[in-house]
């Protein structure tokens, strides 16, 4: 009896590995092998398309520490992430709360805010180049109408990055709004009712009831937002090519430039490893700081 049981367990084990095999083959080839390989490359002088590689040790990493452009690019990336994500999430949360109040025409509003998610980045980037055009773009026309000065936007090193941030808020808020809306629908409405009867105003209801109760989702949205924020590569590539004067050059674009334009795969791999290091570090940081403060309602 126990023998057949053991055999059944062994069979199940083999079958389970067989089920995992297709995924593992692709994960190994296109996710884990590249990471190991990029560590290996970063310790060498590797040129794109050149089979000969030379051992450099940690030279690519010391070069990175001395590379002023690297630090600038890192600063730009941090600026982009730390503005885009909080602004998008605040906008998304306010929109979601408004949608949750059984607003008439909700479906129309929801689609109006969500549709940018469906638009390919290349199309979005292009239309915003047009919208931001200094001489004939509608953004400047609108600024003139309300009496504000016209800006050079993507051609001005002070305004090019904020221009990308504004565009990203337009592009992604709708997605975060939907995720938060799903969480808001789970908050029992008698909580609001009780607070309202106690004379708690809307602002305090938001701060003391809504935000704590949707905090697991908020936390999730911050992580999703961070993962989405690399997509800024597409917009930098399409709209500014990192310019003017590297004011919009972000880490992902700098990796691309180094690897494909300067063909320096070794140094580009060191940069890519730095990206990986920052991403995992950031997610770890979010997990230990915000993750602990998260409130869970009922079971999860």
């Amino acid at each position, binding site marked *: 009896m126990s023998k057949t049981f053991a055999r059944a367990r062994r069979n199940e084990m083999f079958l*389970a590995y067989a089920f995992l095999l297709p995924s593992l083959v692709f994960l190994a080839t296109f996710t884990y092998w590249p990471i190991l390989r990029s560590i290996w490359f970063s310790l060498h002088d590797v040129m794109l398309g050149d089979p000969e590689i030379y051992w450099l040790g940690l030279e690519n990493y010391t070069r990175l520490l001395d590379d002023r452009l690297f630090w600038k690019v890192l600063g730009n990336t941090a600026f982009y992430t730390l503005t885009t994500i909080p602004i998008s999430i605040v906008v998304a949360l306010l929109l979601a709360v408004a949608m949750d109040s059984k607003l008439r025409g909700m479906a129309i509003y929801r689609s109006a805010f969500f549709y940018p998610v469906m638009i390919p980045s290349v199309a979005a980037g292009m239309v915003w180049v047009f*919208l931001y055009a200094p001489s004939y773009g509608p953004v400047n026309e609108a600024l003139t109408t309300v009496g504000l000065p016209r800006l050079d936007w993507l051609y001005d090193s002070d305004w090019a990055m904020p221009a990308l941030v504004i565009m990203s808020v337009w592009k992604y808020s709708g997605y975060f709004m939907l995720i938060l809306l799903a969480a808001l629908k789970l908050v029992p409405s008698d909580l609001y009712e009780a607070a309202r009867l106690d004379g708690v105003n809307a602002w305090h209801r938001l701060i003391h009831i809504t935000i704590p109760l949707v905090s697991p989702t908020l936390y999730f949205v911050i992580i999703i937002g961070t993962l989405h924020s690399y997509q800024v590569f597409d917009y930098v590539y399409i709209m500014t090519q990192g310019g003017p004067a590297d004011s919009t050059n972000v880490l992902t674009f700098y990796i691309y430039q180094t690897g494909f334009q300067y063909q320096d795969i070794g140094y580009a791999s060191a940069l890519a490893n730095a990206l990986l290091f920052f991403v995992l570090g950031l997610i770890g940081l979010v997990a230990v700081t915000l993750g602990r403060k998260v409130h869970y309602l009922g079971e999860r």
Partner: protein
Amino acid sequence: MTTTTQTELPNSPKRFNWPRFLRDHWLHVVMIPLAALWLSPMIWILLTSLKTDVEVFDQSAGFLPEKLNFSNYPSTLSVAPFGTYLINSIIVTGSILAGQLVTITLAAYAFARMTFPFKNLLFTLFLLQVMFPIYAIFLTNFVTLQEMGLLNTLSAMIVPFIASGYGTFMLRQSFRQVPSELSDAARLDGCNHLEILWHVFLPLVKPTLIAFAIISVVTHWNDYMWPLLVTNSENVRTLPIGLGLLAKADSGADWPRLMAGTTLVVSPLLLLFMIFQRRFIDSFMHTGVK
């Protein structure tokens, strides 16, 4: 409080009561301009695609096209092989989805319903993939594909995305919610794991599969960076790459034609979104919960 005001004023005065209107509908007063602002880039794309070159740069021309000029559409189609791009996009997105559905179904079933050594370790490996930005590995993946001789083929755009940690995770959560009585009953009837998976589990998780499919299609249909890197000839390019090239060739000189091209590229997904709005919204909504 709202009920008292309603009973006190059953018949409002003849003149329109602005303060009351604003108090009752203030949310719409805020939301309508905001929604219009969000919609304006899309409206701008459509309006510009119907203008002439002259109108675009003429500041006095106004917001609307003087008269509807549809000639930009045939003109876009004649400068770039959008038909080929469309077919490539369909093949690439469809193949990725088909591949993913097979790999994630099998893996998710193993993680949800089977016991085997190193289960947690393997599951962590799957989850980590979700966190790894493609930008940290695209260089080495490029080199790998070059060595495989796959550069500038449709496969180059497909193979890196066949395994999906995210999809596996999503589906595993759904599989776990299937009551174990159902699979036990099937087991007693003599079904093996594959039969149970096919006849019992898959029909029950259809909503999750649809949700995953929609997200996967939107992501890969719109993808720009990877197809840009691995393609360099017309016959393998996808729609977003084709549009990017058109923009480069025009360098902002021919906005109406470019916006006509943009309309053509964004419309397939936007049309599907309008038709299956509920499904799309639900799919993206529930990526967050659980």
